[in-house]
């Protein structure tokens, strides 16, 4: 037993006062009567034993002493200090990237090995969401993409000296000095074939699998089964809007199904650089085009800019870095293509044309000597290496026709297919390491002095004694 304020025991002197007060109260009471004559004739006698004991007075004094002692004890702040195992601070990082989707039951089993009595903070990777309360683990849900656990481990190292990592492979991360990393790896071989890549290009769907397998293809309700290969290039009927490719379900179902949908409706267009008013007017005149700013456009028209590709369809006009040199326009030829539909060579009155350095598959316009000056360098990326004056090409009918073709291309051609359920390659790469968590390796809990305080109990006890005393005094008063 220890006391926070031992000096308070000086208050026990009040017990002595209570005893003296009680003795003073027990002295013979002086009563004045008109005459003592009759009383003198009554022989005195010793009080009977039961009266000598004065049970009520004795009980009252006892209760007073006990109540005073309890109050004094409460003021002294009693308590018991015992060494008790202190909770360990543990930061638990749970990898919730896509490869963990089939591992979550194992991960929860590993997490259940931890002692809830410890001071545990749970950090999700890669979202870095923190959970101080260690309770229901069922809400832990992996995301359908890959993730790097290192930021979460860095965060964990700033929170605790003991880190438990739950994942399907060892993280490429080293704990800082003084921090120990305990692995709970739940990887291992799984029966899995997944779709690694899927896109539509030039009227064909391209599929790549992690290993050869059968694929069930559904083209707007028309089913086809593809067999025997790891890559497929299949023509799709014109006008197809929805393609579903599915593998036979296995242990990792996240990469077993891909849905490609053709996007229709408005085409968000963003300009980069300084487009001339004719170009802007041609785009704005198209009812399907919608000019946006700071969004995620389907079509980006870059004029004199050289940033990376940031939209499904990008048109570089007068690209500063992508042209080997500028030429006189000379005689121009237009190759039949969806983008050059309705475009007449006579209308192409440029002031200069650029020589595109990279050989391209789809050259739209050829300049002098057959040099391509406008081309689809790859699906969704168009280079238009031309310079034109306001009274040149923009003044001709093919100018708005070409840009209407571009909007149409962006809205329904290459880059207009959206794939759903397609994991990136890293996300579908499953970890193979398996190492159960050894809770004993976390070390013993440190012993820390823990004080159990009895002040409240002492106050309650004193209150009860005072209530009891009040009852005894009241009964005593009633009986007198």
């Amino acid at each position, binding site marked *: 037993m220890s006391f926070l304020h031992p000096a308070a025991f000086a208050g026990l002197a009040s017990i002595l006062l209570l005893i003296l007060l009680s003795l003073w109260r027990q002295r013979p009471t002086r009563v004045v*009567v*008109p005459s003592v004559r*009759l009383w003198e004739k*009554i022989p*005195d006698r010793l*009080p009977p034993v039961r009266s000598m004991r004065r049970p009520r007075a004795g009980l009252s004094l006892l209760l007073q002493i006990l109540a005073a002692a309890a109050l004094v004890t409460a003021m002294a702040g009693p308590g018991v200090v015992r060494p008790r195992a202190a909770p360990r601070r543990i930061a638990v990082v749970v990898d919730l990237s896509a490869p963990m989707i089939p591992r979550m039951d194992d991960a929860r089993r590993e997490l259940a090995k931890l002692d809830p009595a410890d001071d545990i903070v749970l950090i999700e990777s890669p979202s870095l969401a923190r959970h101080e309360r260690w309770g229901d683990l069922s809400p832990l849900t992996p995301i359908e993409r890959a993730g790097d656990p290192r930021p979460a481990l860095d965060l964990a190292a700033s929170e605790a000296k003991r880190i438990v990592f739950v994942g399907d492979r060892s993280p490429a991360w080293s704990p800082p000095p003084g921090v120990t990393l305990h692995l709970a790896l739940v990887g291992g071989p799984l029966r899995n074939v997944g779709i690694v890549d899927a896109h539509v290009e030039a009227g064909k769907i391209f599929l790549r699998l992690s290993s050869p397998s059968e694929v069930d293809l559904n083209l707007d309700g028309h089913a086809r089964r593809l067999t025997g290969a790891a890559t497929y290039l299949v023509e799709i009927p014109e006008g197809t809007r929805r393609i579903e490719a599915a593998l036979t379900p296995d242990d990792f179902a996240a990469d077993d199904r891909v849905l490609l949908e053709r996007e229709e409706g408005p085409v968000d267009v963003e300009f980069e650089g300084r487009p001339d008013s004719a170009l802007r007017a041609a785009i704005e005149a198209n009812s399907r085009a919608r000019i946006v700013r700071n969004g995620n456009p389907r079509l980006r028209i870059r004029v004199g800019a050289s940033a990376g590709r940031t939209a499904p369809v990008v048109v570089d006009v007068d690209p500063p870095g992508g042209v080997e040199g500028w030429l006189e326009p000379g005689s121009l030829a237009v190759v039949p293509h969806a983008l050059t539909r309705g475009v007449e060579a006579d209308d192409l009155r440029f002031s200069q044309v650029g020589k595109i350095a990279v050989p391209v598959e789809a050259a739209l316009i050829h300049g002098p000597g057959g040099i391509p000056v406008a081309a689809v360098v790859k699906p969704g990326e168009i280079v238009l290496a031309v310079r034109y004056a306001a009274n040149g090409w923009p003044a001709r009918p093919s100018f708005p026709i070409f840009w209407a073709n571009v909007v149409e291309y962006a809205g329904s051609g290459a880059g207009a297919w959206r794939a759903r359920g397609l994991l990136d390659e890293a996300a579908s790469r499953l970890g193979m390491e398996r190492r159960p968590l050894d809770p004993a390796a976390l070390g013993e809990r440190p012993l820390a002095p823990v004080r159990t305080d009895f002040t409240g109990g002492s106050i309650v006890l004193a209150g009860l004694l005072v209530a009891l005393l009040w009852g005894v005094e009241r009964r005593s008063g009633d009986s007198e």
Partner: protein
Amino acid sequence: MVFDGEFLKRLEALRVAVRRVLHGRREGERPGSRRGGSSVFHSYRSYAQGDDFRSIDWSLYARLETLFVRERTRDEAPTLHLVLDATPSMSFGSPPKLDLARRLGAALGYLVAGEGGEVTLWTGTNSRTFRGDGSVPEFLEALGSAAGGGRPSESLARISGRGLVVAASDFWDEDLPQALGAAAANHQVTLLHILAREEFDPPIRGRVRIADSESGDSATRFIAEEELARYRSLLEEHIVGWRSWAIKHEASYLRVASDEPFEKVCLLYLRGEGVLE
């Protein structure tokens, strides 16, 4: 000290009973011990030289041939000696015993003075005499302020003559029996024994030091029901003793508690005991 009109009307219909022949100083309506003056026949005696011839009963002389003189008494007003115990013990009770003593004394004095009598108020060795109904206000004022006197036995030792002696006291004075015995030889004595309710049933329990209000003596006793029963028995003996004393000395005795309604005591108890008629 004020009596209400209704009470006074009922009080004035009464008068102090006189059982003995008075020896008053003032002429009144009561037969006195002194001869002559009135038409009330008292007795015969042999004629002696010098007697008034008019008092000779000639019809008796015709039958007995001896001269007898008819003696008549003189009507006298009563003389009241009101002995008021104003010692500290009389201040006990609720209301105090002295209050009832004063009011009873006032009623008796009022009646006596009202019929032309003489009232002497005694408190210890102090006395003051009031004569006739004109002195009533003065008497009542003196009675109201009477306090702190000596013991009633001291008063009784100083009373002379013959008349009515009314002692209003709690009768704890140990010399009272002797003093009253001497007074009873010459006076018609009335004892108004006034006790407080607390004296009948003392609220005392446990170990107590009982102190006398006058002498300062004290006795330490353990008081329980047994002792209280003994006390009540002794008190009863004390009261019976005084009642016996009254019978023996042809005195009137009324024991009354200080909290009894005054009108009831005055109009009912005093009449019942023959103090008033």
